[in-house]
């Protein structure tokens, strides 16, 4: 290639699939280009013509049509068309017409086939289109993170060490020391006809021995069943390591028994995972529980952002990051509640502290405010008990604010008496929202449909979840109004696949990845999940439960999942980059701050959101309440 053609080469290598192409191939490609200027309206290729070239849009815009004449796609700067005809070594499949005056680089069939043979990336790229392209972008990212590619079974290095639940404390300690394990599984030996996984009853760990047995000076003859942990949280051997990490984070446990069908395969410990993720956010979580004062919590809250940036740099996916951040936020809340109870004494009646919104969905990031509420036992008497709960709610809310979780501007916090109510009141709230729905009121109560009990009597929250699942799926009007609200926020994609920009607070032309991307997506996923009576809260989990019904086609579900993952990860990366540059992270992105790869896939992802909104509108025959 002539060195003087570098300008042309440099344009190519800013765009997929040429961005990863070996230099030699790009040079050959550049040399083979023929440039043509076409005026708007010019027919570039026609159906039935023999395909001889692939085209690259250097400037301008091109429309691609189906044979039926229906518009199939619009293609802008840095994008390619005409590859399908070449792949089939045949006729033009999708005729193309210039939408604007355009400068096209055309690539002869010979060069195309040479690239196809010699560059796997290129071959992948041209073989798949649009949304499937988005999918491979997402999976390519994920492949680079060991946590997401390794299975839990790989972490098991030894045979299961177990003992009958009937052993005594001293015997258990001896087995653990002899075998050199930090956790011992306890099996119920009385029902020998059951399979191994069903006989697994409890676990005892080093820490349990220290905190429960030694500090309380229990006699060595104490039956182990008196101090073991029951109601075990387990993980399947085929799960990915990151799922194990999420499970530990979510439940704040450091050991997970591994189950393989009917067999117990062993135990994995926090330390096993930390080997995979050296500076785990799990450390931060355990550190939170060691703090004795709000001051200490505030101090370590500075590490949250570091932990976030680290996960981003280690190519974690958005589900991992969202769950890890939610896990950390949940731990701060839980520790504050423990500290609050130490200070104020035990609660006068049982209660459940409930997280709402992104924390409940396990989709929290670094810029977040606190959304929470309290469900009190029905024996609650305001005059006698409310002073205590108000005090506790204030303690937690102020503590969270100290730790960087700003007060909720909509006052959706347990400090608000309206959101500090007995279970029966909460039941009537939800029943009213669902059975007598009003669009405006639902706009404000939307956040309550992502809920999770995080402390105390979490079964109260579970009860509300099943009430919602049960009633929501039966109220067509509720779903219709929710759908209408979900259509208020549209993706920032103009008619001609250009980004629609808004002026942000700093007077820059940006688009908001949350308001115009992840929020409308999680809104519409929530509605489908509610319609299928799913109790899942996380958007990815909701998609899984939707897929068990036939409400949405599998392909569309995968598209939604990929779009959510991609928009989320771009948003996350944007925040991480801002943090690394010492700035204050937000959700407003300027298109020029994105790589051409991100820009192109974001357009694909926004297109998915837009199509999904169309489907929602069609399904519930609803128009947006108001466009914002």
């Amino acid at each position, binding site marked *: 290639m002539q060195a003087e053609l570098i300008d042309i080469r440099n344009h190519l290598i800013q765009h997929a699939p040429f961005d990863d192409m070996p230099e030699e191939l790009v040079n050959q490609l550049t040399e083979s280009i023929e440039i043509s200027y076409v005026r708007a309206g010019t027919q570039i290729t026609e159906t039935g013509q023999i395909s001889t070239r692939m085209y690259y849009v250097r*400037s301008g815009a091109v429309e691609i049509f189906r044979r039926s004449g229906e518009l199939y796609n619009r293609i802008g700067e840095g994008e390619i068309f005409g590859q399908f005809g070449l792949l089939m070594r045949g006729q033009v499949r999708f005729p193309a017409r210039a939408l604007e005056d355009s*400068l096209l680089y055309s690539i002869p069939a010979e060069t195309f086939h040479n690239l196809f043979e010699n560059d796997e990336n290129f071959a992948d790229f041209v073989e798949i289109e649009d949304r499937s392209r988005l999918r491979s972008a997402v999976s390519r990212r994920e492949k680079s993170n060991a946590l997401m590619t390794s299975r839990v079974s790989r972490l098991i290095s030894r045979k299961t060490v177990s003992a009958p639940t009937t052993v005594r404390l001293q015997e258990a300690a001896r087995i653990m020391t002899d075998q050199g394990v930090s956790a011992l599984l306890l099996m119920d030996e009385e029902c020998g006809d059951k399979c191994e996984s069903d006989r697994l009853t409890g676990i005892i760990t080093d820490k349990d021995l220290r905190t429960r047995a030694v500090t309380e000076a229990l006699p060595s003859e104490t039956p182990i069943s008196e101090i073991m942990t029951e109601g075990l949280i387990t993980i399947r051997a085929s799960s990915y390591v990151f799922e194990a990490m999420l499970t530990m984070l979510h439940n704040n446990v450091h050991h997970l028994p591994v189950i393989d069908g009917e067999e117990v395969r062993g135990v994995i410990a926090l330390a096993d995972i930390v080997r995979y993720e050296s500076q785990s956010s799990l450390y931060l979580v355990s550190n939170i529980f060691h703090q004795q004062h709000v001051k200490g919590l505030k101090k370590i809250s500075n590490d949250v952002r570091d932990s976030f940036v680290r996960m981003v740099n280690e190519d974690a996916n958005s589900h991992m990051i969202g769950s890890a951040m939610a896990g950390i936020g949940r731990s701060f809340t839980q520790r504050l509640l423990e500290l609050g109870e130490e200070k104020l004494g035990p609660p006068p009646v049982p209660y459940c502290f409930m997280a709402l919104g992104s924390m409940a969905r396990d989709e929290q990031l670094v810029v977040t405010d606190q959304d929470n509420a309290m469900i009190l036992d029905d024996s609650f008497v305001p005059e006698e008990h409310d002073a205590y709960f108000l005090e506790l709610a204030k303690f937690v809310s102020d503590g969270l604010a100290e730790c960087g979780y700003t007060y909720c501007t909509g006052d959706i916090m347990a400090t608000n008496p309206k959101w500090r109510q007995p279970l029966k009141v909460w039941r009537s709230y939800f029943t009213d929202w669902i059975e007598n729905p009003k669009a405006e009121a639902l706009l404000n109560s939307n956040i309550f449909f992502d809920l999770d009990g995080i402390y105390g009597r979490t079964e109260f929250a579970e009860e509300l979840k099943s009430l919602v699942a049960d009633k929501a799926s039966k109220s067509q009007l509720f779903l219709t109004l929710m759908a209408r609200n979900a259509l208020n926020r549209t993706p920032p994609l103009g008619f001609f696949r250009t980004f629609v920009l808004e002026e942000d607070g700093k007077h820059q032309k940006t688009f908001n990845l949350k308001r115009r991307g992840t929020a409308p997506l999680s809104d519409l996923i929530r509605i489908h999940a509610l319609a299928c009576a799913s109790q899942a809260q996380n958007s990815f989990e909701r998609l899984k439960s939707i897929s068990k019904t036939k409400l949405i086609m599998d392909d569309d579900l995968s598209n939604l999942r990929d779009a959510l993952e991609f928009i989320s990860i771009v948003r996350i990366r944007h925040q991480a980059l801002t943090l690394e540059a010492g700035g204050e992270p937000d959700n407003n992105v300027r298109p020029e701050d994105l790589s051409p790869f991100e820009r192109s896939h974001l357009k694909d992802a926004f297109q998915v959101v837009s199509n999904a909104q169309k489907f929602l509108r069609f399904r519930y025959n609803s128009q947006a309440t108001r466009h914002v």
Partner: protein
Amino acid sequence: MSDIPSVPDDIKSLPWPEQFQTLAKHAKAPVLKAFYEAGCVAPDTPICEVPMVALDFETTGLESEAHSIVSIGLVPFTLDAISLSQAKHWIVRPKLPLHQMSVTFHGITHADIEKAPDLSQILEEVFASLNGRIPVVHFRHIERPFLDVALQYRLNEGIRFPLVDTMAIEAHLHPDRQPSFFKRMIGEKPVSIRLSDSRTRYGLPHYAAHNALIDAIATAELLQAQIQHHFSLQTPIGDLWL
């Protein structure tokens, strides 16, 4: 250079195809003979059928008698396609001592120039791309006079050929480039017919680099755009060449 025989006026007034035939007989240098023998298309040939070559020189200054060629970029093309596989670029050693050059060249270092060949060493290669094609330039007062002088100097013979000037086309399209006094008062700017400004009017992209080859490509693209916007594919080449 008074010993260089000048071309008689009666030959100069011949139409280009006939003029090429006559000059072919008179030319002594083999490269020039071959150039003229390759011929020139008839003036009534539709532009869409004319093989062309976009040509750009970088020079040490604007006067052909006083300054020298530093680099040559060219790309053969038609209205359909500009073929980068045939794009060529050479750096040549100017006749002037290097220290006298006040001009800065984009991307060309003194070291490049010192090891560059003299134009005479690459003439055959250059003409291989020119023969049988109508040159297209942006601003006709550089490439043709500089090549003419350079050949007189080296071959003792000058060169004559028709060319298409994309700048002249822009000048023709914007006869009132300078706004009136009143329009200037209200802020109207003169229309620029420089290469990059002209390209912008057709939505052609901006090229960051400047070298003879990219400018030649830019010129070829501009002509494609000009013809499609303001002329027709059937426009006779004789209406456009100068």
